[in-house]
């Protein structure tokens, strides 16, 4: 049986908040930094989404379906593409039409709702599923949670919603001696198969590709395919998961990242025992090797691979709890504008900006971060939230 490789790319952009002073509370209900949002979306669309989609489309045609990828596109990114870069959205639709691209389900707002309650979480997922069906004409079967956050109970919630496959991090502290390169199942319900990110091979592209101080620079597709083949000598399945913006944005076009992507499928498929599949295909094909116990939530972020980047300090916890305390009343309000704002406030990014680990864990947190300090981020967020609270019927 052939060994499998899965490629999944995350597409997400939050609605960044404008500088919202406390004088605005109760007076001005517009919260967004249109200029930043528009500029960043247009830039990422032209540097990454559009050229990378075109390249992937070519590769699918060239390899006649032997090259496949998966995307998860958050509701926030879908809305902003519609608003600021419709041609990028079109190119995703074109990819969907090939039949070789799988679109995964996630939370609509790229939210942390899985940490708070099943109801809130499921509402978010349903909303996203609907959006995927509407835009891409397919009903997602596999699920990835925001920032690959996963625990036994989160997996159970996904299974209850009918998903059979879920993607998460191959966190070292969970796996111990075990390899991420197999299919696992949820510890509470074996119906849910788990695909674990191979963080070393994923980060070789996402973080290290253009790093000239890296011992393996420059990374060629041939070398990379060799590493994958090496990993799969004994193991069965390598999952390469990363932010889509790695192509052209985090790793600039000048680094040769697109040439790398163009050459990679050929180099992988030269190894005749390897094939490239979508997550759902791979999950159907391979046998789960063991249940994976994850009592505390894990994620793909930072060294800790936990949720401390979004829910680690007092600021984040207060903002988070204050936000979700409103949910019930927002839902009952029948005010579509209020509900839209409430959705946008849930994006995990807002909480990431409040992370105080940033003082030590620098670079990644700074990217696209509009604030100088976590305190500034918190004050701004809370001011907006105060206004939303005032708008919410008692």
């Amino acid at each position, binding site marked *: 049986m052939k060994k499998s490789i899965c490629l999944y790319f995350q597409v997400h952009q939050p609605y960044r908040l404008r500088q919202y*002073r*406390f004088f605005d509370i109760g007076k001005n209900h517009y919260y967004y930094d249109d200029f930043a949002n528009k500029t960043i979306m247009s830039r990422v669309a032209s540097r990454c989404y559009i050229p990378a989609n075109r390249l992937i489309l070519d590769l699918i045609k060239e390899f006649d379906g032997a090259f496949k990828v998966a995307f998860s596109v958050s509701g926030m990114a879908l809305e902003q593409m519609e608003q600021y870069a419709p041609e990028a959205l079109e190119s995703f639709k074109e990819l969907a039409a090939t039949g070789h691209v799988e679109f995964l389900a996630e939370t609509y707002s790229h939210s942390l709702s899985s940490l708070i309650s099943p109801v809130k979480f499921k509402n978010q997922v349903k909303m996203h599923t609907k959006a995927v069906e509407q835009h891409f004409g397919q009903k997602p079967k596999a699920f990835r949670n925001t920032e690959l956050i996963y625990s036994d109970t989160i997996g159970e919630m996904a299974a209850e919603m009918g998903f059979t496959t879920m993607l998460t991090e191959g966190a070292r502290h969970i796996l111990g001696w075990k390899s991420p390169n197999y299919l696992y199942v949820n510890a509470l319900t074996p119906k849910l198969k788990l695909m674990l990110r191979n963080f070393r091979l994923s980060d070789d592209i996402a973080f290290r590709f253009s790093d000239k101080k890296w011992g393996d620079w420059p990374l060629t597709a041939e070398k990379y395919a060799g590493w994958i083949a090496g990993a799969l000598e004994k193991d069965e399945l390598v999952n390469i998961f990363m932010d889509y913006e790695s192509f052209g944005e985090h790793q600039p076009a000048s680094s040769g990242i697109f040439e790398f992507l163009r050459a990679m499928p050929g180099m992988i498929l030269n190894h005749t025992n390897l094939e490239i599949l979508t997550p759902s295909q791979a999950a159907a094909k391979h046998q789960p090797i063991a249940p994976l116990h994850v009592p505390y939530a894990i994620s793909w972020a930072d060294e800790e691979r936990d949720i401390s980047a979004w829910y680690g300090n007092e*600021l984040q916890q207060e903002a988070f709890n204050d936000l979700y305390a409103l949910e019930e009343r927002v839902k009952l309000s029948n005010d579509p504008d209020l509900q839209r704002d409430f959705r946008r406030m849930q994006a995990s990014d807002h909480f990431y900006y409040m992370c*105080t680990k940033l003082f030590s864990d620098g670079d990644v947190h700074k990217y696209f971060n509009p604030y100088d*300090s976590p305190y*500034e981020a918190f*004050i701004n967020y*809370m001011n907006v939230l*105060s206004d939303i609270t005032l708008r919410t019927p008692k």
Partner: protein
Amino acid sequence: MKVLMFGWEFPPHISGGLGTACDGLTKGLAKHQVEILFVMPTASGDEDQSAVRIINASDVAAFETREDARNLLEKVQFLQVTSNLIPYLGPDEFTEQVNLEREKEWNEFRISFGQKYKFSGTYGSNLMEEVMRYALVASSIAKHHDFDVIHAHDWLTNMAGIAAKRVSGKPLVIHVHATEFDRTGEHVNEQVYELEKRGMEEADRIIAVSDLTRNTIINKYHINPQKVVTVHNAVDFSTVEDREISRGVPEKIVTFLGRITYQKGPEYFIEAAYKVLQKTQNVRFVMAGSGDMFNRSIRRVAKLGISSHFHFTGFLRGEDVKNMFAYSDVYVMPSVSEPFGISPLEAMRAGVPAIISKQSGVAEVLHHAIKVDFWDVHALADAIYGLLTYPALKTMTVRCGLEEVNALKWDIAAAKVKKIYEDVLEEKLKKTTI
């Protein structure tokens, strides 16, 4: 290692942060086995001499013999700081003019043979004269004591440092706690600037209390960057205790504590207070201190119609300062230009969250204070409001701030200073052996 250090003030009799910094630094140095002779213009005898030996300049005669004076004048003829740039003068006339000046200088100094000068040690109107006389006394002290390095704090002691260097030939370290630009904005006093620059040029090394100050020294005084080293100030809080105090008012209290002068940005505090008070009345603002913008500030507060929630305490000292911190919910330092700024650290140590301007040196070492541009009264008002309104912001800044402040030890700063002494001595050694 023995250091001859020139200061202007030393606790308990202090009017600014310089004395406190000298105290902390010398105690830190003492822990690193550095012996210090601390010279100050006027000592009262009740200074804490556990870490230093204090020399009271008022007890030292400037010259003992005629020879002393002549010898010294040769070496320190820079002392007169009148400008030699007289327009429309031919070369002959110029030489004549210079000789005349010299003669005048000589006559002036002759009268002080064997005399002691009673320094006021304050920052009064005859400051420039005191600075010069301090230098004369310094050269006498340098002659009669044994030491390895000279360390002079701020422009008031620059001349003393130079005089001591000329007389002894020992390396000179100038410590810049503030520059004329910090004190006056762009309206610098030429004479003071000149003295500062002279000190920096003659120094073998310059210690700046922040990168901000270091940049000023490099850009505004045109000093070789390699000569300028940043050593951030520190704090030692052994004497500060937690205190419980009952408040007379139910509202939250936001405090400005410092000199009410241009440099400290009091007007931005007032404007921000006005904005916050428009939103909530459940807060009172306190401006503690005195200074040349005091009256203007009161007028502005009255004009804005916020006097019922804005209070002036006048100058506070000792216990009252501690009580003020204990009263406060938020401390604000909106300084336009602050070479370092120790007071936010004192506030944080007392469990009061601090908002500081990005234009302060202390912003370089603090993560857990909220930083705003001094001119951005909107951001300042917003930060005040945030700290008063969102509980997590206060708990987190207080908890993390305390840890952070406790880590800023004079011990560590003193080790860096000692390294600088060692460096200049080594350089000196290299130069003499070549």
